[in-house]
């Protein structure tokens, strides 16, 4: 009986652990640390409002003067259009401030949470 209980508890623990890790298992979000947010400010290099993942490339000048290109990934164009994003929301050369969940492992990439546009407007992602 004790053995069965222990086995049940062990199986339940394994299942819970797997389910917790599986919470990360969706389109790309496992690449990012969803428990953290970071903000970068820089110049837009490229912006593609596209499905299934919108992409924004931003050149950020670091303290040492070197420039690093950040890839900002977001959700589908269809959903971003519903919360106010347009094809011309930003263009190459614009200065923007972007907040997002940073990539795991230190890569210069993030999953968009919100962006502050050159005119001061703030646009968020469509869902989290």
């Amino acid at each position, binding site marked *: 009986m004790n053995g069965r209980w222990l086995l049940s508890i062990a*199986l*339940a623990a*394994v*299942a*819970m652990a*797997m*389910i*917790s*890790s*599986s*919470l*990360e*298992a*969706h*389109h*790309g979000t*496992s*690449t990012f640390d969803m428990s953290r947010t970071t903000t970068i400010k820089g110049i837009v290099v490229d912006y*593609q409002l*596209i*499905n*299934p*993942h*919108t*992409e924004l490339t931003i050149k950020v000048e670091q303290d040492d003067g070197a420039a690093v290109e950040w890839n900002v*990934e977001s*959700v*589908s164009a*269809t*959903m971003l*259009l*519903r919360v106010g994003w347009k094809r011309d929301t930003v263009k190459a050369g614009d200065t923007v401030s972007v907040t997002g969940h940073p990539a795991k492992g230190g890569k210069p990439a993030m999953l968009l949470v919100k962006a502050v546009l050159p005119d001061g407007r703030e646009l968020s992602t*469509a*869902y*989290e």
Partner: protein
Amino acid sequence: MTKRLTLLAAAMILFSLILAPANTARRPPKSASAPQAAKFPDLSGVWYMHGKFGVNRDLSPGGDLPFTPWGLERMKENQRELNPDLRCLPPGVPRMWTLPFPFEIIQLPGRVLIHYEQDSIVRDIRLDGRAHSAELPLYTGDSTGKYEGDTLVVDTTEFNDKTWLDSAGHPHSDQLHLIERISRPSHDVLHVEIAIDDPKTYSKPWKAERVFDLKADWEISEIVCEENNTYLNAPDAPADK
């Protein structure tokens, strides 16, 4: 030239006559669909998940499911493997209910169509009384339905085992028997009860439910998965994706 056109027209008429019986055979019997056309609850509209995606993605009630040994092994495999929709494979059902994309319910006499924005998938639920049938197992299964009072009850079988039950990676087998009860408790709210019976994967049936909000000013758009999918051609993509 005129003679050739006449011959072509004659050939087309001949072919249509030959094919006519086959098409007629596939058509639902009129008498079977007639009762459903009389009165049914209005479930039509564009709907979107209520609450955050992070809350809706996992169908398991409390995270504890009665896995069979096969199901538990499959769950482990799913954690190691790529999310199937990263390969642009159809998410299937019931996973569609856990995705952060809208869908439209279109009710017709004898049929209900659910048009999902994700991958532009259309689910065709027939209400004409015909039994389940599919030559091959399907990603979204073969769905029949009937109205019970204010509820549309959808019965789906004939699944393949290539999809996940939800966005948390819960597995299912080709023995999955899915029953969804779709109702509209108020004008702006859609309720879906999802009953999962899959004896190969779970030792007993279990249920989940989801709520959706009416999006009266939304229209279903198009998402082409292959257009900008970083992971589509990435055989060495990390296993935690």
